[in-house]
Every structure is written in C-alpha cells, then in structure tokens.
C-alpha cells in the first residue's frame, strides 16, 4: 500500500555563496499515514525543518522524490499549511485578518472569510481578541493565531516547525494540550518537528529520530499511549522508558 506522504531518498545540499556547501538531507526516507501525528526529533541542523520546507513546496530537493497522494510535490498547495516557529504573523494585520490571509490569497469572498475566521478564533481560544494586533498578544496567543491561520484554508496536512520553541515552559505545556484538543476536532495529518523528546512522545502516534547532518531517518518509535492523552501520562514509568530509549538513540547524533 502506498503511503499518504512518501519521501524517497531525499537529498538536498545548500550552497550559500562564498561559503562551504551544507548537506542538509542525505537519503532521507519517510512514510506518513493519513490522519497520524508524527513527530520528528533530531540534532540541530539535521535537516528536519528543511524537510518540512520541501514538503511545503518552498524548497526543491536535489534528488529523490516527495509524494503526496502518490503525486510529486510541485510547489505550495492548499492541501498543506505550515505553523512557523517564529509565528510569521503580519504585524500590520489584526488577529482576524491574519487568520484570513490564506483565504484572501485564494480569493475567497469577504463574508465567507470572516465566518471561517470567527469559527477558528473560537476553536483556538482567542475569543475577544479578533481586533488585536500581534504586538498586543503574548507568545502563546501569537502561536494560536499561527495555528488558526494554518487551519483556515482547511489543509489535509499540518506542518509544524518547532511551533512552541519560542514559548516559555508553562505556556508550552498548555499549548501542547490545546493542540491535542484542536487536532481531535480538526482531524489533520500532522508532521511536528521539535527538539523536545517529552513533547514528541506526549503528542505523537509515532516519533522519528533523525541522524546528524546530512539527515536520514535513524529510527521510528511507535507511541502506544492511549488517547486522549493526559498530562499525568508524562510521569508514568512507560513514558519515561520511552523517553530514555529515544534519548539513547538520539544522543549519539548530537555534536556539541
């Protein structure tokens, strides 16, 4: 059976002018099933974000192929949307108009855009903040907007590039729970890149560990914890065993 998203032998080298080329991905393979929550952890610079950009259609690999529904990815498309680490909100737009951005680019009529934005503002818990500007929001709220914006075009796949890395630890815990709630309601396939093993286990159906640069899939862990996930699961022996196992796989790849 062909996977929902398939990456086959994907390689990519960055060639910045006047600097040594960087091999970000080298023979990277991945299979993502429809509706699953897959996290990717790996050392810094291992190409995990690069792969998300390839999947998003912003970057082309040098070789190998990335397929979705069996078709190669040719560029950005409304079946995929990204939640960015640094939020990427347009500072001159209110919360509502930031969320509407994708629909605007698809030339959706204003009333329909507003209806979608209203629904998503409720879903991500930003009721009453629709007319606020990003600089008036906390980091957690900004990322709620980022998430709502990605959901607005109703993509099948949500790509999340360390979305909570810029948040403080407590906000981060809350946002993880929020994400799980939203994911239950919106039912998307999620690819989630993170540095935090805890976060990856808590959220995911499967966790992929990547090797150091040039990035390859090193090992995949199935997370059998029942859903819905509860915060208490993070202190169970089962959770900690997984964490240790993943850490042992990951630590050899980390170059200090």
């Amino acid at each position, binding site marked *: 059976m062909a996977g929902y998203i398939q990456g086959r032998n994907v390689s990519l080298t960055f060639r910045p002018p006047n600097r040594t080329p960087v091999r970000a991905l080298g023979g990277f393979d991945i299979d993502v099933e429809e509706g699953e929550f897959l996290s990717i952890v790996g050392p810094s610079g291992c190409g995990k974000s690069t792969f998300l950009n390839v999947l*998003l*259609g*912003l970057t082309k690999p040098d070789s190998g192929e990335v397929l979705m529904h069996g078709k190669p990815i040719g560029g*950005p*498309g*409304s079946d*995929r*949307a*990204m939640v*960015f680490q*640094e939020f*990427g909100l*347009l*500072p*001159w737009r209110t919360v509502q108009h930031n969320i509407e*951005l*994708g629909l*605007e*680019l*698809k030339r959706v009529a204003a009333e329909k855009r507003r209806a979608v934005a209203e629904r998503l503002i409720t879903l991500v818990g930003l009721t009453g903040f629709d007319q606020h*500007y*990003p*600089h008036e929001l906390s980091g957690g709220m900004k990322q709620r907007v980022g998430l709502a914006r990605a959901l607005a*075009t109703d993509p099948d796949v949500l790509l999340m590039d360390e979305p909570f890395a810029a948040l403080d630890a407590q906000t981060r815990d809350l946002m993880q729970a929020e994400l799980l709630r939203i994911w239950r309601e919106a039912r998307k396939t999620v690819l989630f890149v993170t540095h935090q093993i805890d976060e990856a286990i808590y959220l995911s159906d499967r966790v992929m560990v990547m090797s150091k640069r040039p990035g390859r899939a090193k090992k995949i862990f199935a997370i059998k914890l029942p859903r819905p996930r509860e915060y208490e699961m993070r202190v169970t022996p089962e959770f900690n065993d997984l964490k240790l196992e993943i850490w042992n796989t990951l630590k050899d790849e980390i170059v200090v």
Partner: protein
Amino acid sequence: MAEAVTIRPTFAWRYRKVLLGGLAIVLFFAAWQAVFLVVPFDPLFISKPNLIFAGLVDLVDSGDLFHDLAVSAVPFFLGLGAAVLIGVPLGIVMGWRVRVGYALDPLMTVFYASPLVALSPLLVIFFGVGVAGKAIIVFVLSVFPFIFNAYAGVRAVDRLLINVVRSLGGGEWDLYRKVIFPSVLPYIVAGARIAVGRALIGVLVGEFFAASEGIGYAIARFGDLFALDRMFACILVIMAIAVVLTEGIRWAERAAFPWRIGQ
C-alpha cells in the same frame, strides 16, 4: 485643597517636554530682542523680533503672504507628488529585484549625495521660470529620500513573511501587496520627513533664481529692498511650515502604524 496641590505639579510634569522646548524658543527671541539694548541697531543689516512681528502682521493684513504661499504651494506639491509616484516604485523595485538594485544603487547614491541644488540654474534654463521649472527642482531634490527609504525598507522585509505568503499560495503580486508594500510604508513616511525639507529648499531656490511671485521670491525681493523685517517674517513663516509638515508626518506615523511602537 489636597487636589489643587497634586494637580499643578502634574501639569508641569506632564507637559515638561513641550514647556521646556517652548521656553527655549521664547528665550531665543527674548535674547535677540535684548541684544540691541547694548549693541547699536541698524535696520539695514539686521532686524529684531518686535519689528519682524509688525512686518508679519502687515503681510498677513495685506493678503500678500497668503498669495505668495499659495503660489509656492503649487510647484511644491506637484514636485513632491511626482517624487512619491516615481521614487517609491523605483526604490521598491531596486530592493526586490537584486540586479536592478546593483545596477542603480551607485548612480542614485551619487545623485543623492551631491548638492543637486547647484543644478537649479540649469533646470530653470531648461524648464523655464514657470511652475514646471520649480516643480522639477522640487522633484529632483525630494525624490531621492523616497527612493532610498523604499529601497532600505524592502531589504528589511522579514523573509519569514515572504515564505508565509508563498506557502499559502501567494504569487509575486501578492507578495508586493500583502507583505512588501505594508512593510515599506513606514520607511516611505520616514523618507517623506526628509523629502519635505528638501522640497521646501527646492521651492525657495527656484523662486530665488527666477520668479515674480511666491514666498521665495518675496524673501529675495524684501532682501534686495532692505526690508529685513518682512524678509525675516517670511523666513519665520517658512520655518513654521517646515516644522508643522515634519511634525505632522511624525504624528501621522504614530497614528497610522501602531504596530511599529513595540519594535
């Protein structure tokens, strides 16, 4: 009673910036006036505030001042308007199209850095002493702040926002409309502050060289006639206009770009 005690220092404290600034201006004019208590006063070489003020009242009464200002306003706004319409798109394209930027940057820098006002006599010869000649001098002086600020603004555009719009399916035109232009707008307004000052110089210089009316002409003529009180009155009016325009733009900046405050 307790209220009266607390409110008065609050007023002075709250407006201390304006009050201190205003005080310096008042002191400046007072000193100017007072200097002639010791220095002999010769109206052929200098004027003093009480005479200037009387001259100003006279110019306002006769309607000459407003006539001259209205005449000067035409080339000022035509030249400045053309500078916005040409400077902003040129600067944006220079910033976004790297090769256009490489090609034009040195040439534009040469123009911006050089005292273009020296070309004024030549421009008057080419384009005449009418509105066109003056508007072109204004344009030549004020277009470069728009070009360079728009250029700098584009280069400061957050690449992440470009990727956001691209990833949501936006094309080249969407990038200009949704990201580049809104990012650049505050830079353009900041450029306008500089451009307005240069445009005023342009009008005055244009009218010094060849004109029969307008505020620059009035300054030159009153100078020639040794009517220094009126000459200074006109100069003060120009100064006031320059301050009002630049401060007005500064105020508009804060009102129009609330998101910049936090940056």
